[in-house]
């Protein structure tokens, strides 16, 4: 045993020596072709430079992001505020919704419609039945045609939708210098940045436009509005409304409340959706854990089995140890 392993080392050493000598001879032969290697280096460097250069050119030409609009035309990016109601496990603050609806009604409703919200939607979210009924009754709605085909007026009911300030879009444009005040029902979903954008827009009017800014006549400067010239003037000022719950009606408080209200009008199902959502996640994770357990249980026989392979012994080629037995 000892003698055999000694032999093997000697053989390995010998082969190493032969390969070393072979290397030496090859090196000698390349050195003799010095001119060819200089050409190789030059070709390689040139093609590398060409590859890098063409990639750079291509990126410069086609790879850079292009902007169709100037930053002013894009509008200032709205600040991200930590909205409490946007958290995964939080409902709307319904006291804020109530204040926000008051702001909508007393300030925005003279220009903006809220066509998708019926009075009944307010009941049980921010008003009692009687309050909502009283508000609905302040408005007149058309009746169905009577026997003579006349359409009369009747006081509003809970099932009526909140009336719009203008008869139609054209009337809205005519009253606002040609700019249509958009319907606010879905506005938080309809603008990039949602709540953050509308809050920034409402509170972002500077005292006067910065030097150099061009503001068309009839427009107001607001850095958050794409194009910076907006037909809506600043509407919220400290103390504009008087909250019944005693909250100080600062500009930012009113803006925050009305934005939360507009988020509700766009997603009135949010509270229920989040409540269902986390129940589904809870039950779903229990079911998932159970399915993992069942899978492991069913596979346990397969995972723990051992295969044993006994190779057949060819009669002619007995190995020495066996033959000795």
């Amino acid at each position: 045993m000892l003698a055999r392993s000694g032999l093997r080392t000697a053989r390995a050493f010998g082969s190493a020596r032969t390969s070393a000598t072979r290397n030496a001879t090859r090196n000698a032969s390349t050195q003799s072709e010095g001119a060819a290697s200089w050409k190789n280096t030059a070709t390689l460097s040139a093609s590398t430079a060409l590859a890098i250069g063409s990639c750079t050119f291509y990126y410069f030409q086609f790879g850079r992001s292009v902007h169709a609009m100037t930053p002013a035309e894009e509008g200032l990016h709205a600040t991200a505020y930590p909205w409490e109601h946007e958290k995964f496990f939080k409902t709307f603050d319904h006291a804020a919704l109530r204040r926000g609806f008051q702001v909508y009604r007393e300030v925005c409703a003279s220009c903006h419609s809220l066509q998708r919200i019926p009075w009944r939607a307010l009941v049980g979210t921010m008003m009692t039945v009687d309050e909502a009924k009283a508000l609905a009754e302040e408005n007149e709605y058309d009746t169905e045609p009577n026997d003579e085909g006349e359409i009369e007026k009747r006081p509003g009911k809970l099932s009526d939708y909140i009336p719009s300030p203008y008869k139609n879009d054209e009337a809205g444009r005519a009253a606002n210098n040609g700019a249509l005040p958009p319907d606010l029902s879905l506005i938080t979903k309809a603008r990039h940045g949602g709540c953050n954008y509308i809050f920034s827009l409402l509170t972002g009017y500077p005292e006067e436009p910065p030097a150099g800014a061009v503001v068309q006549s009839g427009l107001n400067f607001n850095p958050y509005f794409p194009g910076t010239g907006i037909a809506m003037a600043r509407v919220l000022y400290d103390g504009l409304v008087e909250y019944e719950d005693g909250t100080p009606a600062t500009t930012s408080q009113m803006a925050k409340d009305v934005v939360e209200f507009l988020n509700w009008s766009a997603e009135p199902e949010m509270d229920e959706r989040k409540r269902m959502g986390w129940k589904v996640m809870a039950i779903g994770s229990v079911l998932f854990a159970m399915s993992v357990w069942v899978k492991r249980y069913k596979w346990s026989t397969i995972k723990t089995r051992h295969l044993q392979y006994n190779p057949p012994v060819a009669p002619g080629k007995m190995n020495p140890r066996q033959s000795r037995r």
Partner: protein
Amino acid sequence: MSGVLGGIYNTVIRSNGVFLSAIFVGAFATNLAFDTGSNALWDSINRGRQWKDIKHRYMESEDEE
């Protein structure tokens, strides 16, 4: 352990009728317990935010009028 399992087998699973009603009653009971518990947790996370937490203010003020 096997005693407990055997007990369950003998009382609940052996008769098909009992087993089936156990499944139905168990499903209802689990649903009820889960809903009650999770809604309570939800309401405590959102205490003071929901309409039911603030409506007494407006209900009472109407009674006074």
